[in-house]
């Protein structure tokens, strides 16, 4: 049980999730944030394997509650780094639903990866924004689409990946979660998914559209754009490959 509780620090459940988000806030370097987002949940799944303990039934509602709370919190957060952390927390908490249903180790690792890579990319994307505008804060510098079209494009697609829109693997992972939950749980997950979409729209509105207060016109380079696009392309392909067989 202790191991399970420790695992709930890494597959964050409220209030233990505060640790992950605190760490993300403290870390300044975007690469470090990205690395934490990618590795942290994988440690949690490793602990679950070690625990060899059946997951008590109350963990699933606890996970749904955590996911819902962080989804709602997303609606009011404008700092992109924090937003990525909260979204990851909200998504990763759902791993418990799969784990409770007895999903195998690989599925769990992949699920955690589907919900941590896009937030990690968003944490990285906060860097060019911070460098240009002093902060990656929605609403402070709107109208990026007109001046920084490449950055806007990458940002929009990454946000879509992060909120599990098809054909990104998060979407198929979410379908898997719906399959293992009862109808009440499924409705709750759908509601959470809806809130993610709403929150992402609000965030993008604050960056890509919105009022224009440009202080920098330098877009990200072609190489960076291609790197992000390539990563997202591979992400989709990997998702389709690994989830397609399972469905």
């Amino acid at each position: 049980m202790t191991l399970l509780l420790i695992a709930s620090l890494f597959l964050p459940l409220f209030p233990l999730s505060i640790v992950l988000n605190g760490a993300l806030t403290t870390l300044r370097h975007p690469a470090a944030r990205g690395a934490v987002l990618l590795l942290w949940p994988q440690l949690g799944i490793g602990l679950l394997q070690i625990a060899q303990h059946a997951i008590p039934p109350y963990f699933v509602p606890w996970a749904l509650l955590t996911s819902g709370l962080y989804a709602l919190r997303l609606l009011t957060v404008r700092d992109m780094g924090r937003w990525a952390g909260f979204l990851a927390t909200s998504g990763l908490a759902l791993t418990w639903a799969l784990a409770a249903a007895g999903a195998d180790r690989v599925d769990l690792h992949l699920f955690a990866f589907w919900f941590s890579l896009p937030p990690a990319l968003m944490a990285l994307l906060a860097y060019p924004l911070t460098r240009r505008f002093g902060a990656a804060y929605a609403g402070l510098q709107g109208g990026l689409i007109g001046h920084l079209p490449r950055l806007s494009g990458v940002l929009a697609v990454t946000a879509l990946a992060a909120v599990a829109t098809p054909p990104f693997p998060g979407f198929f992972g979410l379908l898997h979660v719906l399959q293992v939950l009862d109808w009440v749980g499924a409705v709750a997950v759908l509601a959470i998914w809806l809130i993610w979409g709403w929150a992402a729209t609000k965030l993008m509105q604050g960056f890509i559209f919105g009022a224009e207060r440009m202080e920098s016109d330098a877009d990200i380079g072609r190489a960076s754009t291609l790197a992000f696009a390539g990563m997202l392309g591979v992400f989709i392909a990997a998702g389709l490959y690994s989830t397609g067989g399972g469905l």
Partner: protein
Amino acid sequence: MSLELGRRLNIRATVHVAGEPIPFFWPMRTFIHHNPLYGLEHLPFEQAVSEGERLFHARGFLPRPIQQGYLASGKIDLVALEDQVERFLAAQPDIAGLDQRRLLMTLLTEIEKPIGVPPSLADAADVHAALAGFALPARKIDDAALAAQVGADMPPGRPLYAIVDMLFGTEIGATLDELVIKSCLDFFDEGQSVWQMPGREKGLFAAWTAVAQRNLRLFIRGLHIKRILAADNTPEGIISHVMEALGVPEDDWKNHFACELTRLHGWAGFIRWRAGAKHYHWSRHYPADLVDYLAIRLVLGLALLREHAQRKGLPDTLTGLARFVEAHPAEAYLRREFHGGHVLPEMAHAVEDAIAAPRGSRIARLLPQYLARKREHEAKGLAAALRRLADKAGMTNAIQRLGPEDLARLMSTLARFEQAEGRMWLGALEARTMDRLLQGMDLSQPVQREKRPFAQLMFCIDVRSERIRRHLEKIGDCQTFGIAGFFGIPVSFIGLEKGSETHLCPVVASPKNVVLELAIARSVDEQAFVSSLEQVLHELKASVLSPFITVEAIGLLFGFDMFGKSLAPLAYSRWRQRLHPNKSDSRLLLDKLSREQADSIIRSLQRALIVKAIVRELGLQREAITDGMIRELRETALGNRESSTEFARHFNLDTRAESTFIARLRTVYRIDRGYAQMQMERLGRIGFTLDEQLNFVGTALRSIGLIEGFSRFVLLVGHGSTSENNPYESALDCGACGGNHGIVNARVLAQIANKSAVREGLRGQGIDIPDDTWFVPAFHNTTTDRIQLHDMDLLPPSHLVYVDRLSSNLQSATRLSAAERMPTLEPESDGVDPAKAYRTAQRNASDWSQVRPEWGLSRNAGCVIGRRHLTEQMNLEGRVFLQSYDYRLDPKGRLLENILSGALVVGQWINMEHYFSTVDNEHYGSGSKVYHNVAGRFGVMTGNLSDLRTGLPAQTVLKNGVPYHEPMRLLTFIDAPFDLARRAIEGVVKVKNLVYNGWVRMAIVDPETGICHLYEDGGWRQHVMGTDSTSEEFKELAA
């Protein structure tokens, strides 16, 4: 409660005065180019631009990087720019050891990013420390300073909701705008909506009140409109009530009203224009004015504020807000920083958390840290900018050596300089263009022609006429003239099958005379079939349910239309044109009618209506009725005889049926004595007396200097444009004809000038038009450059042999002109042959996806009022208005005064419209056409809900996002002796103000002395023009 009359009048007057700076917005059907700052033309140009910045939040000059691009491409005169900097520095304090001239020139020409507004927290000592790399000196910023910063954003008159939005991040302003726009769309709709707003005939405020009180959506949102409206039943009373409820001191009402009205200045401008347009059908039937509009805004604004106050505990009076700022200066400051867009980005999250926290302790903890960081940020930012500037100027050490006092002086100078740099760039841009034009002008005396030209053509002064005039003059033996496109005849025109009058003259004039177009012959059946089909399609699309079925049933037809228009626009448009019957030939009714003639016209109209009534009401055929029966029915309806008509007896109508029919003739078909009398009065406005006709022709010819040497053909070329799917089509038409095609005015003048009685009269005035001279109206399509001759059936047989030569000349000029224009529209068409260019131009005119069918008047720069000889050898690239004028025929300057008050004023409006639409397309222009939607059939909005977009779209003035139009004030040249021209300028108050306030750059080119007189910096300066040299000598003259 109802206000006293005096009080109400006072409020009305205040609202109207507050609305003065808002420019009129004409319906898009007749787009009128106008100065967006027309209401501020009484101020000097720069002052008006600053006021425009304040009122409309718009930029008045191009940003520096674009100006630097102009400088690099040689469009800006560097010497003139340096001269401007010198003049600026003359009024600035000296700073020892610093070459300010070099520093400022470097700032202008080598630094793209402005240094920006002075810092709000950092002072010169801080910047000095930052420059030296030291820590910032310790300094405490007290609450009073913070409150003062917040107070600076709360000037008297700023609406309370705007301040609440700024401090609390609410979006009351945006919501209010949305609600107001929806209300306006409902009321002002001109047939776009299928279901109309009820009660519109009672006026805007009354109709809106009736609907708003029953509006469930508003009620659900918590907006208790009813309670506010209960205070008074007049808009003035409501305005007074709301202003008192908000606690706005009465002295600030005017400013407050101005802020409210300028917030949606497109709608306010439309309402302002509409209220004064007495001839406008929609305003006559559905009246509205700014007072109604303002009352609605204020009611909704107060309701929204109260709703927020109730829900979130925000202040809903000015006093309450002032108390809040006074009691919580730190919170107010941080709120303003965050919601007002001033927050330090890296602390945005911390500030947001602090102001959202219920306790003030977080704010108290955060504030010192925030102030310190922001002060440091500002000081370092400014120091870095100064260091960059100094490095570029090679003055790094000089800047480093400055003490805090000198640094403070320098910072103030730089701030003032960046405020003033726009006008410096503008002056230098104008100087280069003016210089080029002056150098190209031929000041020698024109050589007398040996024989008369083959044809003379009178074109509109429009800049688009210049190209085709130049080609015509080169190709054929043609002489061309420029005259305002309405040819000096203000006409109120009623076209074929049109029920309303169109004013064909500049909007500054109101025509007294009506010209009626009458058909010679027409195919009624064909016409009826096509119009019925169109009517049916329209009904199917517009009704509530039928579109569901229409899509299934005939959707494919529309698909065919779409493919045709998209894939082969030119061929498809020609095919479609063949479906429509040709417009029947017509004549214009130009002569005044005698009483008998008018009586006869009314009689024949009444007869036609009676026949229609019999066919419609009784189902009888025309052939069953005799003229006698119709006459008898008419007399009965007019009350000249008792009933019991032959008609009733013949068709066995009993007395009751007969009386009912006669009553319907009176009420429905308006066959009654009163209406006949009204028709008689209206007919009295038709046509011109012989004296008027003589005067119009004589003045037109004298004003352009054509009183002898008439050719066989004198073409009067009106102009207009054709394009598809383009709400701005009329912006490309003739501005002098009120945004309409100019062909009607050309036909009117030609018809008058060809009359023998008129020519006889003209001979008496010394204008001897030979018998073989024939005035031919023609239409210049500026999109395709095609010139089409009209009324050719009236041409004397003796001229027919020359028509081929005339047509081929016109066609060649058309193609050459298209070949010159097309590369500017489509870069890939560089070097196309003229025929291909012409085809491309035709395609542009019929392509519904073409957002830029032509450049219109973009790149207009100058206006030359003088003989063609002056500019005949120059390629003016379609950038100059050319008004023909011969001062030798105008010893008193009266003709020049007319030209200045008409053509120049219209030219200046066009010029300013382009200027402001270019320098700030989002605010003064209308943004991209791609997002436009037609609103209510009279305007366009961006997206589905926005202010009415005024000004020109981006596609008209920008190319690839950068200005295509070079924004400068109209450079006007008058070819006349200095004293005569100066007297004429000073003789027209409007023109005098435009020139002396710097809205127009004026140069008088004196042909008798060869000296050019420029009006600059409040005085006339001489510019001695050498024939082969560019040397200049300026002498100050007493203004």
